[in-house]
């Protein structure tokens, strides 16, 4: 018994260290957002703000167009997510349900897109958006992201886990492809689809590089870009305000994750639906 306990402690030590390393910046962010400027520089390593102050949050909400940034980010992230999950599910369903020439080849080509570095794609995408006149608009951020190879791959694996007789039974009952997708496939892949949707949303919400290239006017900025303003030369050294913005920025993804935690974990653990 004792040796088992010792073993457990040995295993736990590195894990606790890893959790601490992950959490430390978040704790630091949260505590700094509740500190005023004096405290930030006097008690750097003390995570507890004393006394806590909401001044930073008040400043963010009163002095900056914070809600505009939230709206911009939400608009882009929602549209990107909806488009990505729709294209992923539809393409994955087609890859499983239909038999067509070159199916495997097309799928393999799609897998190859995983290995193309994002930096390689930036130039052609930027030129395309420029030609379409979509620079400095949310559409310019959204359009190149409406399909995602990883999403198609994940959804295809999940749909493949549905026993074929279920699809055939629905077919014999008179359901068309759309009916099979909506009445049989979607309800069965719901947990995985929700998990993938959350991932898409969080990724898009946090995206920095591509919006930075496309969006030039400040009123079009998303939250990660706005955050940069407070840390850059422009915002000076307003660490407290910057951390308050960071806190507010991470709040929605965090909430979403907590709400859908069970789907995300189950998707990781079984990566499919059992029949």
């Amino acid at each position, binding site marked *: 018994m004792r040796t088992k306990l010792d073993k457990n402690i040995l295993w736990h030590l590195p894990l606790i260290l890893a959790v601490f390393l992950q959490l430390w910046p978040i704790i630091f962010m949260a505590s700094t957002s509740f500190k005023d400027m004096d405290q930030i520089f006097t008690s750097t390593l003390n995570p507890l703000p004393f006394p806590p102050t909401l001044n930073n949050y008040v400043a963010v909400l009163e002095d900056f167009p914070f809600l505009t940034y939230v709206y911009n980010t939400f608009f882009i992230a929602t549209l990107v997510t909806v488009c990505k999950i729709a294209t992923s599910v539809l393409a994955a369903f087609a890859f499983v349900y239909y038999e067509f020439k070159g199916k495997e080849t097309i799928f393999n080509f799609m897998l190859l897109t995983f290995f193309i570095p994002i930096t390689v794609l930036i130039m052609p995408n930027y030129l395309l958006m420029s030609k379409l006149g979509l620079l400095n608009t949310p559409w310019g951020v959204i359009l190149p992201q409406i399909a995602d190879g990883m999403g198609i791959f994940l959804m295809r694996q999940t749909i493949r886990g549905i026993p074929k*007789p279920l699809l055939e*039974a629905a*077919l*014999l*009952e*008179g*359901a068309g492809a759309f009916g099979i997708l909506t*009445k*049989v496939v979607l309800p*069965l892949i719901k947990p995985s689809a929700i998990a993938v949707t959350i991932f898409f949303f969080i990724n898009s919400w946090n995206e920095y590089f591509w919006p930075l290239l496309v969006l030039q006017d400040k009123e079009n900025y998303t939250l990660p870009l706005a955050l940069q303003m407070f840390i850059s030369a422009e915002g000076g050294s307003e660490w407290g305000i910057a951390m308050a913005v960071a806190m507010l920025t991470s709040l929605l993804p965090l909430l979403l994750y907590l709400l859908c935690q069970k789907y995300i974990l189950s998707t990781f653990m079984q990566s499919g639906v059992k029949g």
Partner: protein
Amino acid sequence: MKNIEFKAVKKKYDETTVIQELNFSIKEGERLVLLGPSGCGKTTTLRMIAGLEEISEGQLLMGGTVVNSVAPGKRNIAMVFQNYALFPHLSVWENITFGLKIQKLTEQEMAKRAKEALEILNLTGYENRKPKELSGGQKQRVALCRAIVKQSPYFLLDEPLSNLDAQLRQQARTELVKLHEIYKPTMIYVTHDQVEAMTIAQRIAIMNKGELQQIDTPENIYHRPANTFVASFIGTPPMNLLSAHVRDHWIFIGDACVPLDASWDKVIAGRSRITLGIRPEKCLLAAEKPMVPAEVSYVENLGSQRTLRLTLKNQENVFVSTKDFTQAAASTKGFSFRWEDVSVFDYKTGINIGYPTKEGGKNHEIFN
């Protein structure tokens, strides 16, 4: 007419032909069982009727119309799958009414049909359960319910009882026949279990290696098999197949010499070698002067009967089923048979060469 007709139907996967030319028809309201060993093409044949497999060559007619390119949903077919294929996210009620909703039936009509089916199959009270909350037997009955509420003229079943235990299976067989009597659909049932086939079928179609071997009533399949494959596939133990030489009016089995019955003269005429088929229960044990001398090499007690394995001098084995449990039976000196219980097959092709008729000629009618 809700009949089904295969006209030179073939199924190929790339270059491999899995169904050789099929030519047969299923009558309206008939219970036909497709029987054969694993991989014989019976499920593929059923799936071609359902429209789940494309037909490579030939024509499939349903109700007189060619349906080769008709979508499965438009063929008006009800099907029960081997693993039931119940939708796990839907309740029993929703599973049963799934197809009816697509057909856009009125709520009233839907409820009427579903309630009736649930009652027939003793599932009343289970409407709100999910499939995972049901036992194997209940799942199977829900699958049947879903099939019968459609009231389709065609009823296809793909080994629907294979996941049930022996006792439930017997009960389900009776239920199936009862259901058929109520709705009278054209029913095609796939199984590899000969007991199921014999008890359910009005006619059995036996397949092997993608070829139809015989299609006939269970009685004829059992007593008048079209070839040695059917003879050895049906029956436990299967029909004894003995190689025999024919000379004048005598046949030689092992080292025994048996006079050929005059009624068989015309049928066997001109053949020097034949394969003689005798069902184990038609072999008569003989303590003295048996037609074919043999030694008992093994006795199997099945409770209601015993199966004796007799070994002939030429090392051929003959199985004899008997209800005689006396010691005398176990110490038999051989066996005899009656000529009216015999089937005769061509030695090389294994095809049944026919039976004597009253007029003394051959009778081939059963093989057409």
